[in-house]
């Protein structure tokens, strides 16, 4: 139920030739979009920094857990029993050579290990959820945009309806409803699946809308007309003509959806429906930090900054990627 006429669909409308457009067209000659994007990206220091951080984070998530301590092991000898917070360290964080990021109040679990393991969960859930959103969104978007008519109407209305749902509430409710063993899964396996499904399923309309718009404009392009006039079947046009042209927007919006999903996962964990403790998660750590942040502020700051840095890195990289692939948006 958005605007009756999509006057705002800037991505879908052909742009009037700008002063530079003619020049751009010439420059592009002889190089593929990928090459140009790479050239542009290489010059974008900020985006590159983001990319490097993202790579490092992915590396940490994959191999990090093999290099850190057991994130569940208690070190209660490091806890001051009277105040129930770590002994010593900067701001009572318990930071020491053995525990570079300090230890958790009450249990003395190593924070570095928990952050590293938390990264794995965070990235795993957000990547899988993004993948799911992208797959559903692309299929729905292409279908709606390409076939038009009532198919488009139904899918578009479905997307509107999805956008009218209070997602966070639904996610919490869903996770709560299937709390204990269902569909042949249990514990964290179930929880991670539910998180992925919930986050992925509720986010597809964002991608779907973009893909639909792109498909709409591609459908009217000459090369598609050409293919169709030569008798190409729908499937051929969809997979050989349209899909390849959607790779760039899909790539860009996936990259930008990942940080959104990281925040979503963290919010769910914060509200107590993320992965089940003791499995470490960043949002879960922030929940535990709420009652104690005034006496042990580092316990709040560390997971908060972990979320922040990760999301920022993905956003910087995604922004850079978009700028590189879509010169207009600069």
């Amino acid at each position, binding site marked *: 139920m958005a605007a009756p*006429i999509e006057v705002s669909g800037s991505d879908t409308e052909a742009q009037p030739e700008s002063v530079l457009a003619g020049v751009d067209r010439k420059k592009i000659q002889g190089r593929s979009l990928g090459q140009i994007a790479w050239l542009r990206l290489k010059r974008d220091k900020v985006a590159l920094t983001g990319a490097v951080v993202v790579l490092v984070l992915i590396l940490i998530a994959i191999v990090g857990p093999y290099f850190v301590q057991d994130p569940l092991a208690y070190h209660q000898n490091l806890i001051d029993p009277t105040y129930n917070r770590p002994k010593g360290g900067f701001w009572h964080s318990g930071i020491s050579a053995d525990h570079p990021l300090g230890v958790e109040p009450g249990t003395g679990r190593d924070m570095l290990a928990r952050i590293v393991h938390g990264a794995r969960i965070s990235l795993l859930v957000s990547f899988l959820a993004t993948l799911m959103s992208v797959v559903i969104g692309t299929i729905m978007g292409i279908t709606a945009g390409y076939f038009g008519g009532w198919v488009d109407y139904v899918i578009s209305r479905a997307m509107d309806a999805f956008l009218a749902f209070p997602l*966070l509430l*639904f996610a919490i409710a869903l996770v709560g409803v299937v709390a204990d063993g269902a569909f042949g899964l249990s514990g964290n396996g179930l929880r991670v699946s539910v998180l992925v499904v919930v986050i992925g399923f509720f986010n597809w309309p964002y991608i779907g809308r973009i893909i639909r718009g792109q498909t709409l404009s591609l459908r009217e392009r000459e090369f598609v007309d050409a293919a169709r006039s030569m008798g190409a079947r729908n499937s051929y046009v969809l997979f050989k003509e349209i899909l390849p042209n959607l790779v760039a927007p899909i790539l860009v919006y996936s990259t930008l959806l990942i940080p959104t999903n990281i925040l979503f996962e963290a919010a769910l964990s914060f509200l107590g429906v993320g992965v089940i403790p003791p499995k470490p998660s960043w949002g879960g750590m922030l929940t535990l930090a709420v009652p104690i942040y005034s006496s042990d502020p580092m316990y709040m700051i560390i997971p908060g900054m972990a979320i922040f840095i990760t*999301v920022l890195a993905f956003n910087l990289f995604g922004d850079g990627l978009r700028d590189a692939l879509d010169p207009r948006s600069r």
Partner: protein
Amino acid sequence: MFAYIVRRLIGAVLMLLLVSLVTFGIFFWLPKLAGQTTDQIAAGYVGKAPTKEAIQDTKERLGLDEPVVVQYGEYLKALVVGKDYKAGPVTDHCPAPCMGFSFRSSQPVLETLLDRAPATASLALGAAVVWLAGGISVGVISALKRGTLWDRAAMIIALSGVSLPIYFTGLVSLALFSYSIKIFPGGGSYLPLTTDPVTWFQSLVLPWVTLAFLYAAMYARLTRAGMLETMNEDYIRTARAKGLPEKTVVTKHALRATLTPIMTVFGLDLGLLLGGAVLTESTFGIPGLGRLAIDSINTGDLPMVLGVTLITASSIVVINLIVDLLYAVVDPRVRLG
């Protein structure tokens, strides 16, 4: 115009039906799908002595023994004609539109929602003012000063803004401004505007700013991108070619075209927020719809959850309609129909 509004309202009702159906399905049907029996579900609501009779009574009282479809039908019926509710010696009538009674407190849902709505509205509308003012002005200046240090700094701050979890920003701001430097009252100090305007304002400053920071960051980016695009439009070139001063070009020609699509986004955002800002309300202890929703989910108070969901969806739908009507006013190309 009138026909359009009627058609949109019918569409809205259908949409709300869909939303209620899905919500109902998730809460009443999914648990059964996941293998819970009606007795097990009812056991969650009987209190401390879950005897057989008590469970049976609970099932009957809450209508859980009916098939889900019948329960949904009852729910819709109550919305249209109201509902009687046995509260013991007295029978409570809940007039249409009746959204049922809480499974936990037996309060009429609508009454509770209306009681909570002002807090959420105070939060959402106040924050909206802050973020629109902040986000749009930063976005416009950034677009006009594209590539300058200001632009880069503003955009990095904006990107940071959207990268920070709001509960984290909220906690940090509470720690800084409420507990360390005691400028603002802490969380949970909210009082209704009608009770105590001063406290109302003071208690909402931090939540407004925190919430607005996130959105302002988003809107600054949106505005900047839109502005850059608009400034490349032919009609901007025409405006310049006419010899209009740059200020007129920006404010009269560019800004209006930039803000029109942002209005749609704003409608969606505000609509969602009016249904409850879950994280902000939780962090700052504001007794709004978002907290009600979380509390209700945690206690399995299904009618209440259903109520909040419908209120949120309604506010999105209604605000969208308003935005679309406004859109037609702002953009003459849009014809309602």
